[in-house]
């Protein structure tokens, strides 16, 4: 067991194999060696850590970087499924089921928590962070492209295109819009 201390000073007793999903913690443990000292996580709150380390529902092996971002990868996965690396076929199939269940739960997490989880997973260097479909939480747009206005609202982004620039970009990709 490893003792973790979050930014809000809560202590977590966590299984070693679970915390070692985090490359950050794994490296820390290797540096420190066997020790009862708590590991401080000043950038992670207790509510987020619970989400990230939940052994039953948390994602485990999904590489957010995906195969196209990882040049070392040789597996081919359909982009509609999360890319899974370093696993046997059987395991991959099992995981895929686990993931879709987790995916469902993940989508029900509110939007702010989603951003916090992403940040925490980035800080902890957990490959298993899942952000697939996270923009589809309303699942209203499963069939086609979500309008850019909605994305801007979600991310609090200001449209900095002129109408002419927008029209030019649209021209190239209009063929792929819903029809």
């Amino acid at each position: 067991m490893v003792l973790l201390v979050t930014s809000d000073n809560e202590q977590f007793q966590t299984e070693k194999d679970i915390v070692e999903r985090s490359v950050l913690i794994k490296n820390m443990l290797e540096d420190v060696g066997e020790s009862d000292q708590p590991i401080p996580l000043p950038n992670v709150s207790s509510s987020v850590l619970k989400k990230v380390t939940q052994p039953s529902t948390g994602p485990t092996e999904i590489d957010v970087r995906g195969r196209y971002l990882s040049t070392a990868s040789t597996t081919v996965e359909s982009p509609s499924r999360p890319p899974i690396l370093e696993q046997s076929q059987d395991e991959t199939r099992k995981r895929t089921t686990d993931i879709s269940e987790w995916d469902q739960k993940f989508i029900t997490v509110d939007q702010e928590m989603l951003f916090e989880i992403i940040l925490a997973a980035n800080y902890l260097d957990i490959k298993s962070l899942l952000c697939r479909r996270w923009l589809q939480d309303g699942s209203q747009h499963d069939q086609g492209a979500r309008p850019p206005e909605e994305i801007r609202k979600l991310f609090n982004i200001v449209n900095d295109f002129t109408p002419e620039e927008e029209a030019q970009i649209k021209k190239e990709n209009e063929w792929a819009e819903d029809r």
Partner: protein
Amino acid sequence: MSPTRARDATTSTPELLELILAHLPMRDLLVTAPLVCKTWQALALTPALQRVLFFEPVPLSSSAPMQNPLLAELFPPFFTAVAQDTHWARLPGSARSIKSMPWSKSPAAFKRAEASWRRMLVAQPPPLTMIVAEKCYGQSGAAERRTALTDISPLRMGSLYDIALPFADADTDSFFCVLWRDGDVETDSEGDITLAVTYTESTRQRRGLRLDERFYSDAFRDHANLEIAWGEMDHTSLWLNAN
């Protein structure tokens, strides 16, 4: 950290945004992401995301290539699997099937020269060579000819479409199909992909269904006249039964 700060920290970290975008459905990444703002437009041009979008090739791998799902959806005759014993007149590619492609009723967005489907790779990793095999059924039997196109590497949809289209747009009954490498490189040393074409040498002229200019891209490049240099006639059965 407050919720808003978490969001802003996420969106101002390009590495994180890139990860998020890489997991969007392909259509969202292609159509919506570049329209959000200039930062997102620039992000969609990173090598990693260009690979996700089938614009830049991924490194060769030992597994079977993955067809471009967006192109497969909108250009079905080019991506339909064909069984070995398919009758030549039931091949998926024909003037009729081209005319009934999902976009055929509003071809303007497809026809314009800058439409991005033309730059898209047909599969990842992309085919680097293409065999064009033509079989003609005439009164004196079947004749075949074939050629390897090497100047199409890596194969993008614009080239495949431009090369295949004239074969379907003929005065005779003509059909085509695309035979995809199924991953076992050993069994097919000839080409990564084969465009198989059949037609009849008919005594009756003008039987075929012609395609009007709506189906030709403004950037159409006639490969048939420019680059297809046929090899010798080959009478062995190469790719389909002549039943």
